[in-house]
């Protein structure tokens, strides 16, 4: 019983290892669209930031 749970857990980790790299650049693209220029060029990169719609406003204006 326990071994089957471990197997399931490992399989889930494998699936995550496929899904996360696939999603990562797309999430980065989406995140940078709601990030200010200052936050985008910050070093070290700010993984937590206050989202803004100003980029969308500029594009649609």
């Amino acid at each position, binding site marked *: 019983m326990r071994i089957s749970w471990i197997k399931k857990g490992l399989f889930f980790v494998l*699936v995550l290892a*496929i899904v996360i790299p*696939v*999603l990562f*650049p797309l999430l*980065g693209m989406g995140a940078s669209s709601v990030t200010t220029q200052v936050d985008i*060029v*910050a*070093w070290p*990169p700010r993984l937590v930031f206050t989202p803004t719609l100003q980029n969308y406003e500029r594009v649609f204006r």
Partner: protein
Amino acid sequence: MEPKKIRGSFLERNLHIIFPMPAVIFVVVMMFFPVLYTFFLSFTNWNLTSGMPLSIVMLRSYQRILREPRFLAALGRTFSFTALAVSVETILGMIIALILNREFKGKGLTKLIMLLPLVSTPVAIGIAWNLFYDPTIGLANFVLTRLGLPKQAWTGSSSTVIPSLALVDIWQWTPMIALILLSGLASLTNEPYESARVDGATEWQNFWRITLPMVTPTLLTALILRSIDALKTFDIIYAMTGGGPGYSSETLNIMAFKYSFEYFRMGQASVILVFLFLLVLIMSLLIVRMRKSLEL
């Protein structure tokens, strides 16, 4: 009454020609004409900046291009980019297909997520990956420094630009190979596996002796599609590096683009495209022949 009868019989007699005509016209105009016109231009010295009319110079454009070290370097880069990207994509695609071939909760969602890179716009992908690769503010170097490794120039250095671009190609196109192989795996019957289980075969033996031989035709189809596409890659490279730094990521397609739309040397650009066309053709024929020999 009489003329109608004649007209009707003419249409009826020629239906087999009339009905396929739109498709034939489409193929001739949209497919054959550009290829033949490119072949024709490759024998000319057409230069948009010279103001001179186009004249036929036969193989002189070929000689000039073949003598260019930049052409041979671009040819080598096209090969290395294709070989690196397609080989990694095939191996990773196979591994992912084997994983996704099992039944599990969220399989549909995983397959849906796998489709996302395929439908993403190349320019958007280029921008996202350029941000990721940026030598000063990029997340890639942030991770490397956190791991205590030296920063890399990624697309900013001639030694790392091709592997960096190949990584983007791998990210975008591995899901396609995985999904093609997944459809191939789904069509396999269970009987050989059951017999193998009775004989005491391991999972590893099952893969090498049953799965791989049976899925090889599908694998080769995926390989043909990807090789052709990788040889012709333009959008990602142009969006990310424009062929730079210097000429270090300039493939044949990028070089042909620059020759035609930056230097306006249409004749020489056509020569490069003829070489690219022949390259794609030879590679496709080789893989098709390989596939046929495996089926016999």
